[in-house]
């Protein structure tokens, strides 16, 4: 018996959130006695990159190398993962919550008749029954969910576990994926992705700007801070609605939900809908000239001051200290 982990890749690189899922599965297997962790990776990925999945705790990696799987086609990926799951006789599938992961997991829940829990924030309680804690109400509460099926799927939220990379390389095995043509009926015609930047949903540090920055031309100092810290940039809803920043940078209730270790909010007042997108952050810093901005109530650290004055000074201080 093994636990299966679905690995996501972007341009041949394994996503860090998928490695977190491997670490999670490894800890879970230790708790439930479900044996080894086996990862399944699809599409073109180098052998060294695949073997390195072992460092996060996988004993074996099944590689479905068919280049038709490079693109994240939801149905095709769901069928391939179901095949791997049955091949190794798994009872549990773990994956990282993401745009593709969610879409694939939902179809797998039906294919495998598996109880699915999304937004999992910690290891399940398995001593009596199977109780999984998940984040609900957009991070404003948690629910304990009782899974009643023999097969289980856990889609974990970022930071559900600390990523450990102290294992040995995994054994990589090629995996012959047989998928019916109907699963390739939809096609991806093109992809637009910000290149060379840290991706927002996966970033450990996020630097975010609001309407207080007065215009898109003033984002330079935020981009500089992001560069110094190795952070992703983000924004509030009004900023993306005004077209100052792209929609995929919008953090909040109806945008991206982030869970970084550090969230730096600059010129954002902190409307409840914005807080819903950031309340899973470990540490929040707020810079705002209005001492009554509601964001200060949700912050760990704050500076009351004009962003145009504070941010350049802060950038110098970061450079000096790091």
């Amino acid at each position, binding site marked *: 018996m093994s636990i299966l982990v679905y690995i996501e890749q972007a341009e041949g690189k394994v996503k860090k959130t998928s490695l977190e899922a491997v670490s999670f599965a490894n800890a879970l297997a230790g708790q439930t006695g479900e044996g080894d962790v086996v990862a399944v990776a699809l599409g073109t990925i180098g052998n060294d990159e695949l073997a390195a999945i072992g460092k996060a705790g996988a004993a074996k990696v099944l590689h479905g190398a068919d280049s038709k799987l490079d*693109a994240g086609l*939801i149905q095709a990926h769901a069928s391939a993962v179901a095949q791997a799951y049955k091949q190794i006789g798994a009872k549990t599938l773990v994956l990282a919550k993401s*745009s*593709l992961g969610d*879409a694939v*997991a*939902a*179809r797998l*829940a*039906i*294919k495998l008749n598996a109880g699915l*829990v*999304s937004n999992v924030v910690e290891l399940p309680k398995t001593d009596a029954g199977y109780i999984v804690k998940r*984040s*609900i*109400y*957009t*991070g*404003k*509460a*948690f*629910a*304990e*969910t009782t899974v*009643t099926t023999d097969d289980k799927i856990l889609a974990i939220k970022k930071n559900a576990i600390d990523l450990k990379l102290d294992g040995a390389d995994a054994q990589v095995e090629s995996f012959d994926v047989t998928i019916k043509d109907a699963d390739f*009926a*939809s096609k991806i*015609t093109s*992809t*637009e*992705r*910000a290149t060379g930047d840290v*991706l*927002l*949903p996966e970033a450990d*540090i996020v630097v975010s700007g609001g309407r207080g920055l007065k215009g898109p031309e003033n984002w330079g100092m935020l981009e500089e801070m992001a560069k110094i810290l190795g952070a992703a940039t983000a924004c509030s809803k009004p900023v993306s609605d005004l077209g100052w920043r792209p*929609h*995929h940078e919008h953090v909040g209730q*109806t945008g991206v939900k982030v869970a970084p*270790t*550090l969230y730096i909010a600059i010129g954002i007042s902190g409307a*409840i*809908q914005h807080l*819903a997108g950031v309340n899973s952050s*470990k*540490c929040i*810093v707020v810079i705002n000239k209005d001492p009554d901005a509601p964001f*200060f109530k949700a*912050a760990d*650290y*704050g*500076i009351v001051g004009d962003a145009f*004055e*504070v941010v350049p*000074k*802060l950038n110098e*201080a970061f450079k*000096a*200290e*790091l």
Partner: protein
Amino acid sequence: MKILVCITHVPDTTSKIQFTADNTKFDSTGVQYIIGPYDDYALARAVELRDQASGKLTVLNVGEADSDPTLRKALAIGADDAVRVNSTPKDSYFVAKQIAHYAKEGAYDLILMGRESIDFNGGMVHGMVGELLGIPSFSPVMKLDVEGSTVKMAREIEGGKEMLEANLPLIAGCQEPIAEWKIPNMRGIMSARTKPLTVVEPVSQDTQAEASKYELPPAKGAVKLVDKDNVAELVRLLKNEAKVL
């Protein structure tokens, strides 16, 4: 073209989240209920598509009788008729089974809903329905156009988007900016009163992962303010006290 839009009946985004009965029930005291914001985008796009193709638009909710005003609002926005599956939405699997059953009977060409509900945030129902019906599912979809039987979509991915093409029938979980939210006008509100709202009983009671107990996150401590003329102090605190750098 026959379009089905599935909506959730959820607490307004500004609601205070609290629980009662020893943390086993959501406390709805003083809470305003709305159409899920993502569902509202799906509905708005569906109204536009229905008007283009002179099709029929049905709106569906799995919920108790207190969902009826939310369904009436969807009728006022532009749906032609409404269906309520008479049950608490117990978990994603339970809801997906109800929708799949109804959608199959009605032979819908296009099924839209929000990318996720804003109460349980699972974002799983559209994919489950797709698999149950054996049709493609896509989410989160931020653009959707229908040309004959071809559907052109943009799906948000981490750090960008991908353009997709697929054929009807299909199901999509929607988000902004697929369409602008529509506010019901007086004519819509008046006509919604007489549009059909049918109540049907659930087809199955099966569940797989029901929530049994709730809790709130620990209260946040007070903010530590740093003087704007001493920003280096903030860097030191982040490094040595919070240990996040």
